[in-house]
């Protein structure tokens, strides 16, 4: 069976997952290790705070709270392509819209901009203060608030790993 790659941040409530890799440099690996988690461990995804907030997992009967950015570096394998919402997607990953769940004015605007079922989106960046996010869609750049993105259901099409590969990394781009 072909296994799909996923990130811890794309999991759903009460999903049991096995960690297969860390998408980051030595710093990230050490950071995660300090929570007691290493590659090969099995954790239970419990909950996430609103938007790109903290992720809570259960490991060895302990509840561990991880920051969103750190949690997104934890890679796992799952049987199907991961499904989640647009606000959870890590910078660099590519997704396809499966359902436009937004309502009201937001929905009008997003539809006008081409955010419909089937369209492919790449997350380009998160604003310096953490909100809004910038995406690449149909060849142009669109920004929207995390609040506005949370109602858009997506399927993760490609996970782009950072240049870390477990080695030492520097630089801010």
């Amino acid at each position: 069976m072909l296994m799909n790659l996923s990130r811890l941040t794309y999991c759903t409530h009460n999903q049991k997952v096995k960690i297969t890799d860390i998408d980051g440099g030595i710093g990230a690996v050490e950071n995660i290790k300090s929570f007691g988690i290493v590659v090969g461990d099995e954790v239970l995804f419990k909950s996430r705070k609103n938007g790109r907030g903290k992720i809570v997992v259960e490991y060895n009967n302990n509840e561990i709270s991880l920051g969103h950015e750190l949690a997104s570096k934890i890679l796992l394998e799952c049987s199907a392509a991961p499904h989640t919402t647009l606000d959870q997607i890590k910078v660099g990953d590519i997704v396809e819209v499966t359902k436009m769940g937004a309502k009201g004015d937001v929905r009008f605007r997003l539809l006008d901009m081409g955010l419909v079922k089937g369209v492919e989106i790449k997350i380009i960046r998160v604003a310096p203060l953490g909100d809004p996010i910038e995406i690449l869609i149909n060849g142009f750049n669109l920004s929207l608030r995390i609040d506005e993105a949370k109602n858009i259901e997506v399927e993760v099409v490609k996970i782009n790993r950072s240049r870390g590969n477990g080695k030492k990394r520097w630089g801010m781009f």
Partner: protein
Amino acid sequence: MKKQISVALVGNPNSGKTSLFNKIVGANQKVGNFSGVTVEKYEGTVLHQEYELKIIDLPGTYSLTTYSPEEVVTREYILDGHPDIVVNVVDGTNLERNFYLTTQLIDAQANLLVALNMYDEVEQQGTKIDLEQAEKLLGTHLIPTSAVSGLGTEDLLNHIVELFENKISIKRNKLSFSSLMEGYIEKLVKIISTDEELSTKYHPRWLAIKLLVNDKDVYKTVREYPIWIKVNHILSEALAYTEKKYDSDPELMIKEERHALIRGAIKETVKYPAKRKKNTSEIIDSILINRVTGLPLFIFFMWAMFQLTFSLGETPMNWIEAFFGWLGTTLSQIITEPTTRSIIVDGIISGVGGVVIFLPNIMILFFALSFLEGTGYMARAAFVIDKVMHKVGLHGKSFIPMITGFGCSVPAFMATRTLRNRSDRITTLLIIPFMSCSAKFPVYILVAGTFFGAAHAGNALFGIYMLGVVVALITARLLKTAVFKGESEPFVMELPPYRMPSLKILLLQMWQKASLYLRKAGTIILAASILIWIASNYPKSDEITAEYNQIKSDVLLSTDYNEAEKVDVIHKLEFQESSKQLEHSFVGQLGKLIEPVVAPLGFDWKLGIALVTGIAAKEIVVSTMGTLYSLGDVDEDSHDLRSRLLENPNYNQAVALALMVFVLLYIPCVAASIVFHKEAGAWKWTAFYISYTMTVAWIMAFITYNIGKLFLL
């Protein structure tokens, strides 16, 4: 008289529509307003063959719906204004999104031509478009254009004439949706066609589609007709069925299908290059808005824009000041009749001069804003600062108008036009006055410098500015929760590629906005200046005049002084006389009348009068105080004025602070208030604006004075 063809330019924002407009009409354009709304109307003419083309540049829009005033204006113009030709300017590097509007224009049965703009960039990217096939699929003419290189402009004008003369035509291709949706559309078209009036006014298919996508305006229109019952029946049926079978709704399905149609057409006709090269915009963005440098760079750019406006503007400001000063003195010598002289020199010249002097600042500011907007950085600025703005219920785009308010409220009010949502716009308009404008600065310098000394004046100043910002943010929050509940605009915003705007266009836009400022502020200020002059000079007390004439002639005749000393003494006496006359005038009496109101704030009637004159223009507060202390024409650096203020036992640091707070918060000058009214568009908002600023000013000054009394000297 040449035959006229009316042409409407429609297109997405950032499609280069306005550049194309400017390229075609050049300087033959004028700016006005669409009636009843604060949306600018750009009209121009160009002669081509035997025709005069009257071109109107409609505001940029992504779709023919009706949320913002801009979209309403565009749609109404196309549907009800019946332009002869509609030219849809499309950004060739962004076809999917741009064609979304194109297909709606086709639905509306506009006499359409599509200008495939930015074609130079399309070719540069290596994209190949099969124009013939695309024309067939869309059912309209496509003309490649580039405002930058001039490509296609002649071709476009030819096409306009040919289409007008019916010399060219393309088979209209009905863009069909799915059979399910087409089924409902057909049923609705059948019903609508039974009403003759409605089906002649609007194209039935257009109405049918808009009804299915929940268009509020079309609903309102069709609801007036008897067929509404049958129409509503079909709509409910469609809604129920799509929800049950597809967990969707007709609006979503039609919009999705529209995008799918477009994607299909593009797949057939456009070939994108194999590898998309990392373009310049991406590189620039990775430096300008990355997580580390984004915020500091943003703050730096805002500061730089500000600095530039005031330092570059300083020299021309001095020239203008000198000019008006010269004009004043020359006219003083020419006009001998004292009343006429006074009304012209003290009233009109200083009043109008006070407005014109800001023109260099305003022009530089508008130039900077046009530059930021034209390059595309404005969108990035909103992107970076939105989180902070959103916390108080505002939009990232509110930031720049607010920052502009630190210079002058008038261009700041005008800058709120970028906010498409009405409640965001009104909220921003209401809080801009709290951004301490530069005219208030002389008052702070005078008061803080006098009562707090060099060491602490700076802190007091900073505190005042911060207070303004805090009051603004709290007001925004209050308005959001109490008045504009849940109406804020979605942030969804395009980040256009960085482009270098042409200098010619920047200067043109700067001039257009500046002349709007002159027209608005200038004409009303003239009237207001005269009014205020009358109020500060009349009624005159004959007793005082007689009394001083007596004293002056005594001095002239006396032997106690030599000639030089006499001139000096006469001068001092005249200042004293002005002071007494001011007290006696309408403004003076008003100041005394309001003394009980300002007394709890620690102010006396002299300060009351100064504050009243400050309603005309904030700089006047200082010169009025000068007059009241019989010092003639002084400014904030005046040593004499400072010592007089210190001498007064009723003035102390608490009063000084309260005065600064009051000046910070109370009603802005007449010019600003008038522009506010024009931008807000409703009396109730202007009334609220006046009462709110006065109330907040009074309360805050009261608190400041009473707390200050306890802690300060």
